[in-house]
């Protein structure tokens, strides 16, 4: 059984890594040194071991939870008491595995990918900080500290999206990500405040209890759950705050794999799961989660159909899959949503690392400049195809198992069910469109301009990059098997277990898995027809569906609506601009007006001071007369 000290160490080791890299190593080592990467990788190996230990201990513990004592932080008697503590339950244990495993693989990969970058040490410092914050987020036992780490992962995301800050697009994307997610955080904070007002606690366990026992009024429960969900919408890039994630692809690709695919963007899903008793006891809140999730899934997938940048395809795919997870939470519960998060982390991280590997070889992310890479990059090709099959939901890869559960859960709700089914088709189509364009046909030249480009002769990436991809590919195949027996579900407090053989072949006895498999197969077939065999011309198809194609390609004009119309015109130029005018002309104008008035008044009155005694005598005379008259009439 793991002790609390070791659980603390899970969070603290990456913190130490950050401190050591930024303050003790980075100022003193040469730019080419790889030591900073090794520091983080060593820390993460240890953390992974500790996380596995935690998982095993939690599995063995009663109620699947290890108690960890709290530390008092801020105490204001009769006011606020804030403690600092950790949760070690099944949800945390699973998240720990996801975060440390993907982070470790990504860091090993980064040793190769980021080699030679002038910001190499800075990269690993921030990656350490990110991993520490992400682990803190999944371990936090109260909403306040969860929020603290929530903001810190947002900061790391900002710093790493803007890693190449000299590129204006990267700087813009970083700012956009921070501000859009902060808009969601406003709701999150409001939810926390509302809960605190009514319960006087930030503690997650106590909030669960209050929600389950019905001690919280249902309106408060609903509003605070929706507030918290707003935070999740921002962080997990759900509709209508999805716009920041595709732009976030300006960051280095391993960053996209870790932060913007596997872990941080999934924090929103984690948050809903963490606070699930609140959602569970509010039908409105749970329905909101399911609907937003379902809508996002299909909405994002539709845009993924037409993108030419491979990372954008993957970004929209991530948004769509996160929507799937939300849908899973909304209709099925924690086990189903988190199971998809678990599987998705591996295959989506792998897809991004694959995209990075391709970029390393060709110097571009534009699929139109790739092609024919199957022959020169066999490892990348094989792992990318495995991940694509997995995300498309092909039996028996991991994606199939979690996607199947979500689809089955939606069966009773026809609208959400159709959204989920159409998304299955779209997903397999856009993934295999990417596969065929990138790896099939002949090489179309690549680009010399961007990071790591080697121009005309693409080649397989070095071992240090390929090995993590192979590990993730294995996980993309097998991670779903955890729940074939139903053990993942029971670990999360759901359903029952059965034998492996039964679970493994059971889907074929049901109609729904057949439908989704057929739809996925059709998606692959269509992609094959259009992009590999060219039976159907993509251009002609695009022209045939011109309005729809334009709608998808221009991303439903959301960027234009938000950035140009709302932010630039309505807020900055309109409201803020006119307030600035108001401040200068009216508020300050009034002050200066008073000053001018005083001066003018002084000038006018000054004329009375003529120095002529006769005039003064006259004034005195008038004054006395006035006084006499007043006294006479008033007295």
């Amino acid at each position: 059984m793991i002790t609390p000290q070791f659980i603390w160490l899970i969070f603290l080791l990456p913190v130490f890594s950050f401190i050591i890299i930024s303050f003790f190593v980075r100022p003193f080592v040469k730019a080419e040194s790889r030591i900073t990467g090794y520091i983080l990788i060593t820390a993460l190996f240890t953390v992974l071991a500790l996380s596995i230990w935690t998982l095993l201990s939690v599995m063995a513990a009663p109620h699947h939870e290890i108690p960890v004592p709290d530390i008092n932080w801020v105490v204001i008697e009769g006011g606020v008491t804030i403690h600092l503590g950790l949760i070690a339950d099944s949800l945390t244990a699973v998240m720990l595995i996801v975060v440390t495993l993907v982070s470790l693989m990504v860091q090993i990969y980064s040793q190769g990918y980021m080699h030679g970058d002038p910001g190499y040490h800075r990269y690993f410092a921030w990656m350490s900080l990110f991993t520490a914050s992400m682990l803190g987020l999944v371990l936090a036992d109260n909403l306040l500290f969860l929020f603290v780490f929530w903001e810190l992962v947002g900061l790391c995301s900002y710093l790493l999206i803007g890693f190449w800050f000299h590129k204006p697009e990267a700087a813009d994307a970083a700012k956009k990500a921070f501000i859009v997610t902060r808009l969601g955080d406003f709701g999150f904070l409001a939810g926390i405040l509302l809960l605190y007002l009514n319960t006087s606690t930030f503690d997650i366990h106590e909030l669960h209890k209050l929600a389950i026992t019905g001690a919280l009024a249902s309106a408060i429960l609903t509003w605070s759950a929706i507030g918290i969900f707003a935070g999740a919408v921002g962080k997990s890039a759900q509709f209508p705050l999805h716009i920041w994630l595709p732009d976030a692809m300006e960051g280095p690709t391993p960053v996209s794999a870790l932060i913007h695919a596997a872990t941080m963007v999934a924090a929103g899903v984690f948050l809903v799961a963490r606070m699930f008793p609140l959602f569970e006891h509010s039908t409105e809140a749970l329905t909101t989660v399911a609907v937003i999730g379902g809508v996002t899934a299909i909405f994002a997938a539709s845009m993924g159909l037409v993108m030419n940048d491979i990372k954008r395809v993957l970004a929209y795919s991530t948004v769509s899959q996160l929507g799937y997870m939300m849908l899973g939470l909304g209709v099925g519960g924690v086990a189903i949503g988190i199971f998809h998060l678990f599987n998705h982390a591996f295959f989506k991280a792998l897809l991004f690392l694959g995209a990075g590997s391709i970029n390393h070889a060709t110097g571009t992310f534009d699929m139109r400049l790739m092609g024919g890479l199957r022959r020169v990059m066999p490892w990348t090709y094989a792992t990318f195809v495995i991940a694509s099959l997995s995300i498309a939901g092909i039996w028996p890869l991991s994606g199939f198992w979690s996607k199947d559960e979500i689809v089955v859960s939606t069966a009773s709700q026809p609208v959400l069910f159709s959204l989920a089914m159409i998304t299955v088709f779209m997903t397999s189509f856009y993934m295999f469109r990417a596969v065929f364009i990138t790896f099939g046909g002949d090489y179309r030249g690549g680009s010399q301009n961007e990071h790591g480009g080697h121009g005309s002769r693409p080649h397989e990436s070095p071992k240090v990059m390929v090995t993590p991809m192979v590990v993730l590919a294995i996980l993309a195949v097998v991670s779903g098997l955890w729940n074939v027996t139903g053990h993942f579900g029971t670990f999360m407090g759901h359903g029952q277990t059965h034998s492996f053989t039964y679970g493994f072949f059971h889907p074929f006895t049901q109609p729904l898995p057949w439908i989704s498999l057929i739809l996925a197969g059709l998606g692959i077939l269509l992609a094959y027809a259009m992009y590999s065999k060219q039976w159907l011309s993509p251009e002609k198809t695009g022209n045939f569906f011109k309005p729809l194609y334009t709608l998808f390609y221009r991303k439903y004009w959301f960027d234009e609506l938000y950035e140009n119309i709302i932010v630039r015109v309505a807020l900055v130029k309109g409201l803020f601009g006119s307030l600035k005018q108001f401040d200068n002309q009216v508020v300050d104008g009034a002050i200066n007006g008073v000053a001018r008035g005083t001066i003018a008044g002084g000038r006018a009155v000054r004329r009375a001071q003529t120095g002529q005694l006769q005039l003064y005598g006259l004034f005195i005379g008038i004054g006395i007369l006035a006084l006499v008259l007043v006294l006479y009439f008033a007295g």
Partner: protein
Amino acid sequence: MDFNYLTIILFLPALGAFLVAFLLGNNAKAIKWTAAVFTFIPLLLSVILFACFDRSPAAAGLIQFEEKVSWIAPLNANYHLGVDGLSLPLVLLTAFLGFLAVLISWKIDLRLREYFGWLLILETSILGVFLSLDLLLFFIMWEIEVIPMYFLISIWGAGRKEYSAMKYVLYTLFGSAFMLAGILGVYFTTGSLSIVDLALTGFDSFRTVIPIAVIFFFLLIGFAIKLPVFPFHTWLPDAHTDAPTAVSVMLAGVLIKMGGYGMIRLCVTLFPNVAQTYAVLLVILAIIGVLYGAAVTMRQTDFKRLIAYSSISHMGYVLLGIFALGQVSLIGASMQMFNHGVVTGLLFAMVGLVMHNTNERDLRNLGGLARQVPVIAIVFSIAGLASLGLPTTSGFAAEFLVFIGSFTSTAVPGIQLYTLLGVLGVVVTAGYILWMLQRVFYGPVLEKYNGTADADILERVYMFAFVAVIMLVGIYPPILTNVFKLGVSPVVGLLGG
């Protein structure tokens, strides 16, 4: 204790000013070192004071390190100094910024004697405001501060410096006139000038010469102009923008805190019932300040002016916390004063440095500096993130306490809605801070700034001091909340909460 800590802290800078002005001649080195020593010792003593301060619950509301000497007996006026949990951190902040202001001014070369003389007088007068427990002494210290400010802005400033200095003086005096009327109202009603006694007795047993609410508002106007509260804020951007760097640091860092301190110390403590009656009005003004200030900040293109306008928004949180009239909200407001003092102090110091090293203050012409001045870029980013309230910086600790304290306060109807509107301000804050960082430091490297100097050793020293305080308070807020809560608890007792 026979060692008169407070008198020594209070008058050492003034003594230094005397030495600099009259005894040292024009020896630049001697002047700077004298100024540094005579501000460093008060800082050291304040730290000792902070360490020795009795934090036990029994000390709640007690005045510590008290000194009292009869001053003008016929008026019942005393030379009465003391600190409690409310004023101590602000004294520490003043001593901290006072010393760093000298370091920040190290590169000044115009009329050194006068400059450092005025700067040190300024520190004494601000310390005097926080240390005085006698209304007359308080008022005198409050007024003295205007004189050095006028000269510092109008001689060493930039841009429309004479206009800004004059505006500052007239605006402040306008407020002080009301404040004096308020103080006289208090005096003629009670016959006492002792802030401590007045807090204990209150006004219930007296027949006031003028309505008590009028006295409250007379005092409030003086403080509201200083804080500043919308719509009395327009002196601030001008004064900040045109003042020399170190003076902006002092002005934003501690001078405007005198307003918030005065509101808690006098308006709320002496008139708890009146404060409760008019709290809604002031909370609404606070929210206007937060949102309006942030909105106007978004449109600034002058580097320094942008930071100046952000202060208006941030001071809105102080006003919100004060007039939410809850224990936690008052602690939050005090925390926000301290936090803003350090963070905005650092921001102004950094803006001054960038402007000095690049000779450019228009945000539209700056860009890509992160490559050329990495140290400045890192420290500036930390200050900016603290300003937008990122957790682990003092900004988050302070703003969060204001939010949670105001939201749960029972004194003001509808406070939840106002607080949420205030929370919305942090989104806009993120907007202008990140826009500013991007404008100045990110984007393509501009060749014209290739030779730009990064921070030198001295500058790194004071940057480090600022950052250390920001992180310390951010990671371990009890270091301050444990002190503030002692100062705030008697006020809360008066409010009946």
